[in-house]
């Protein structure tokens, strides 16, 4: 089985690898997958509170080459987008972009879930902060 060129490119030169400070109120963190399943993705977003634009995105992934490429591509896709636009990102776009074979589609699903989980975490933090400042 050979790997697709784009997958190899993301694997060899992953974009946006690293971690953001998860304790910051402007940072949302999503961790999806499970070690027993062979994939865990951590995706983080830093969001501008006024414009709701994703200023920065970082990831770390335990998984196969396609999982690493999917999460790398996901961070690239959502950077500069608003929360609403980022939530529109579908796994099928990742599948097409990376030409993932059927057996690797779950990697793209996981990347989509990671985006949603990270944004969800940010929104929860924001809601909690708003509640706290009211009190």
């Amino acid at each position: 089985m050979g790997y697709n060129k784009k997958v190899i490119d993301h694997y060899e030169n992953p974009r946006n690898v690293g971690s953001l400070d998860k304790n910051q109120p402007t940072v949302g963190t999503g961790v999806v997958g499970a070690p027993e399943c062979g994939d865990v993705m951590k995706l983080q977003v830093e969001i501008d509170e006024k414009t709701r634009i994703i200023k920065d995105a970082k990831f770390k992934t335990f998984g196969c080459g396609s999982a690493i490429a999917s999460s790398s591509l996901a961070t690239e896709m959502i950077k500069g987008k608003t929360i609403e636009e980022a939530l529109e990102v579908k796994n099928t776009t990742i599948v097409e972009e990376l030409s993932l074979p059927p057996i690797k589609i779950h990697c793209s699903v996981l990347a989509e879930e990671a985006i949603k989980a990270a944004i969800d975490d940010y929104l929860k933090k924001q809601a909690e902060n708003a509640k706290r400042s009211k009190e």
Partner: protein
Amino acid sequence: MKLPIYLDYHATTPVDPEVFRTMAPYFTEHFGNAASRNHEFGWVAESAVEKARAQIARLIGASEKEIVFTSGATESDNLALIGVAKMYKEKGNHIITTSIEHKAILDTCHALEKEGFEITYLPVDQYGQVSAEAVKNAITPKTILVSVMMANNEIGTLNPIADIGKVCKERKVLFHTDAVQGVGKNPIDVERMGVDLMSLSAHKIYGPKGIGALYVRRRNPRVRLEPIIHGGGHERGMRSGTLNVPGIVGFGKAAEILQQVMPEEIVRLRRLRDKLWDGIRNGVDEIYLNGHPNERICNNLNISFAYVEGESLMMGMKELAVSSGSACTSASLEPSYVLKSIGVSEDLAHTSIRFSVGRFTREDEIDYAVKKVIETVTKLRDLSPLYEMVKDGVDLKKIQWGGH
């Protein structure tokens, strides 16, 4: 040094150039059918086959009449199990094997279960061994066959074949061993080991693909088999079909070379394997050896690299031809059943890599491999959220993972 470096000798081996040279005339000049009894072409082919039969028999301490040629070890395993099951079904319907056999054994057992045979799959210990005691306790008056592999193809663990052979002899149960990975890596003697049936493959010992053999004991006791392939009654009726003469000639030559070089090769391969293991473990932390620390074949190394998934590891070190127990490398999406059977947790099974060295492995290739493995594991751990969590003091076992 030529890249990529082949470190997957358990999967297959290149044909030794000398073997290839020996085979060549049997494709063109000496193309005769070994069953043609009435002319020179047939006689030449037949005598070449008989020479090979003797070379293979000598390697395992058998007599040449006890070697039945097959298309490979998968067929040998099928013939041993199905052949005994059908021939001795009046005597009993129970077969004992282990949970970490090759699929050629396990799937054949599943097929026999559908036909009413009862199979006991003995569990193995944390190293992948089954004890003679466990075999003894599993034998019932209905048991007709015990099949235990000599060495496991993934983790390299050796089983106590001679002890199991003794137990089988005492209880008058036939004993088959799949010796595909064991042959050439430890001395084999069917008498000393008490083996009645033994599966062998040529392409794992620097011979060609598509040829294998089944050793079938002829006396004390004389083992009889119901054939699974019917036809012209070749191989004393146990395996019909025109003999693959070039393949057989190559198999014989490969066996002869193996017997000559084995004592030195075992020492050399063990040294290279140990060098690889020492080099890797001095360079990265949190790695685990799968299989037995000592009672393993000299050329096998199976390591779990915690927090780094196997397929991505192989992708990062594509200059090394190795294999992985990770689910991502199999069509089934299930991690290795062998690692599972020895109690390796699923998360660690996903991180396992099997290295196997062989006749053409050189010292500088091992140096290169060590460097490449360390480099790739380090790079992927920088990318691993799990490694980061562990370094931050998070207990991964306490996290509620979602899965998918």
